[in-house]
């Protein structure tokens, strides 16, 4: 069963997968901070939406799919055009490399992100393993 990316359904699938993935639970056990992933419109995606996740100690405590154009406040706000998110989701773009090359824009405590690269990468793995279609 796959869900459309991005959609409330896919976000819920990701939420459930994060909470059932023991490896993520272990790697991210010290992570404290909610994130807003801003999917910006581009030629392949008309809208701008926000995937909000409240991540805490290896768990996803809550998620929210935000279609309002205003930014959802969060400790970490990461934005990119839809196509770049898709490349990350499909494993064609490493998220750390994407941050270093401005394919992802980041607002928030970069020290915390760089300190927790394994968590970032494992979060990405779970997202990649969450089935999606366009």
């Amino acid at each position, binding site marked *: 069963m796959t869900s459309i990316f991005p959609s409330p359904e896919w976000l819920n699938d990701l939420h459930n997968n994060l909470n059932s993935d023991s490896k993520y639970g272990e790697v991210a056990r010290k992570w404290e901070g909610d994130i807003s992933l801003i999917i910006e419109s581009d030629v392949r995606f008309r809208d701008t939406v926000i995937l909000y996740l409240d991540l805490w100690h290896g768990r996803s405590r809550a998620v929210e799919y935000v279609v309002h154009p205003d930014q959802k406040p969060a400790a970490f706000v990461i934005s990119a055009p839809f196509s770049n998110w898709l490349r990350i989701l499909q494993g064609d773009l490493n998220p750390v490399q994407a941050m270093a090359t401005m394919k992802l824009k*980041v607002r928030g405590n970069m020290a915390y992100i760089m300190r927790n690269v394994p968590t970032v990468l494992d979060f990405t793995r779970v997202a990649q393993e969450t089935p999606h279609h366009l």
Partner: protein
Amino acid sequence: MLQPILKVDLTTRTIREGPVPRDWVRDYFGAASLAARMLYEHLTLDLDPLSPEAPLLFLNGPLTGTAGPAVGRFVICAKSPATGLWGEANIGGFWGPELRRAGFDGLWITGAAEAPVYLWIRDGRAGLHPADHLWGATTYGAQSVIQQELGETGTRVASIGPAGENRVPFALILCDHGRVAGRTGMGAVMGSKNLKAVAVKGSGEVPLVDWAAYKPARSAANRALRDHNQSVVLRDLGTASGAEYFDYLGELPKKYFQSGVMGPGYHASGCTVSETILVGVSACHGCVIACGRVVDLGDGRGRRKGAEYETMAGFGPNLMIEDIAAVTRLGERCDELGLDSISASNVIGLAFKFYEEGRITPADTGGLPLKWGDPEAAAACVEAAAVRKGFGRFLALGARGFGRYFGAEEAAVQVNGLEAAYHDPRGASGMALSYATSPRGACHNQSDFFFVDVLGQTVDGLGLTFHSRHAGAEKARDVAIHQNWRSVNNALVLCILAEVPPDSILRLLNAALGIDETLPGLLLAGERAWNIKRVINHRLGLTGMNDRLPQAFLEPMPDGGSAGFTPDFTGMLSAYYQARGWDPTNGRPAPEKLASLGLEWALPDP
């Protein structure tokens, strides 16, 4: 446009101006590339790099001091006493821009003073001052005394420490707030000439052909650079910002390149510094990044320079030292004594390894036990190396000489006498070629290809392809292009940490020199510079046999993020020679390659 250089003969105490040929500026732009052209005829196999005859060249680039994006740098070049090959070290701070404002763009220093001196340059004039009272002083100490003596606010001083005076082959030259020309022993060359320091103060304008075009291009480039993610990270966390990631990938070596992990909970990184001892940041002239760290160790000495990535890796994980304050002090002491922290920590790591293996004993070390993780032992080694006393006599040989003396040269992690930086080719395979083919030895600044391998920085417009960080021969062509591109950086001089797009660089360079260069032309100039340095090195005795890796990089790491991997070096080197147009049997640039670069006059010596 470049201004005249000052030609200083310390033996005869004569100082005169000399022009820089316009054609050379057109072909090489400035700094490291132009230095190679200027030194070409003078660097010979039988030249002793520490003799009075050996020239020492300080040179600006066409963008130095223009407040463009991270361009406040200059370069120092000579025949290297560490390698016997091409020596080059570029350095930030404010000294280079100040020299421009004083009316000069370089210094050509030969001879040797009868007694220690320092050179004082003030707005078109220059003279030599006695420096007997400064001999033995630290770099910062000499800087401070000279500034007080001259009494001119804003005087910039480039100085050596005791290590340079003692001709340690990895002695540095330091200016301003701990900015260093660290690699290839330029401090030893300066010390051999009895030249303690060069002080400069200028009040003129920085020369530039088309300010009207330059200023808007500069503003746009600086704004973009300031807001780039990498700049934000460098400002927040310093050059060690990527340490955790490099560690995760097994690209950050530990225990003298023998291990990929250090232990749970340990992080020698910019994050650790920012969360513990950081109290401020510092910047070189006009730089919007401000990657310099200002720290307070709580020992009553107040604010001081914090360690950057290489120093932190070298004195931290490389020696298994966990105390970030101790690592900071070790780096600081290297700066004070005038030792390159990469080479110093490398040879000390080799000593620790030999001690653990029983190859050296307390009888060799003067009773000093060398134990992994012991900052006191490392500090004693630093002190001894700088003055070449006791065990320091061996450490001051550098890693190659130290290994050779104790019967295990192959254990030294170096190439051609230059100790490797702390980016392991087993974590980022492109570094295998970067280290093996750099004109100055195992250097990460002639091509920091790890940025491509692990951070994906393929630099739009250069034609680089992103390969796996463990790919082999398929990335050889890209390494060559990246080396050419970094040669452009080192000619301008543009800090390699600054992510400035090629089209922005072109706009700035064209306005600065009043030319109409293109990106292919820029890359060709980089390739020309790479090849002229190669020809110089062949003249100095380098052969294809020198394009090699130390044994450590050819053995798999037992653990960590790159466990089990070794680069296919043979295949990579073969592909690299092909990509370069070099003779596959001896690594020499083919005559047709040299001709294509306008270097037909530089056919390799027979």
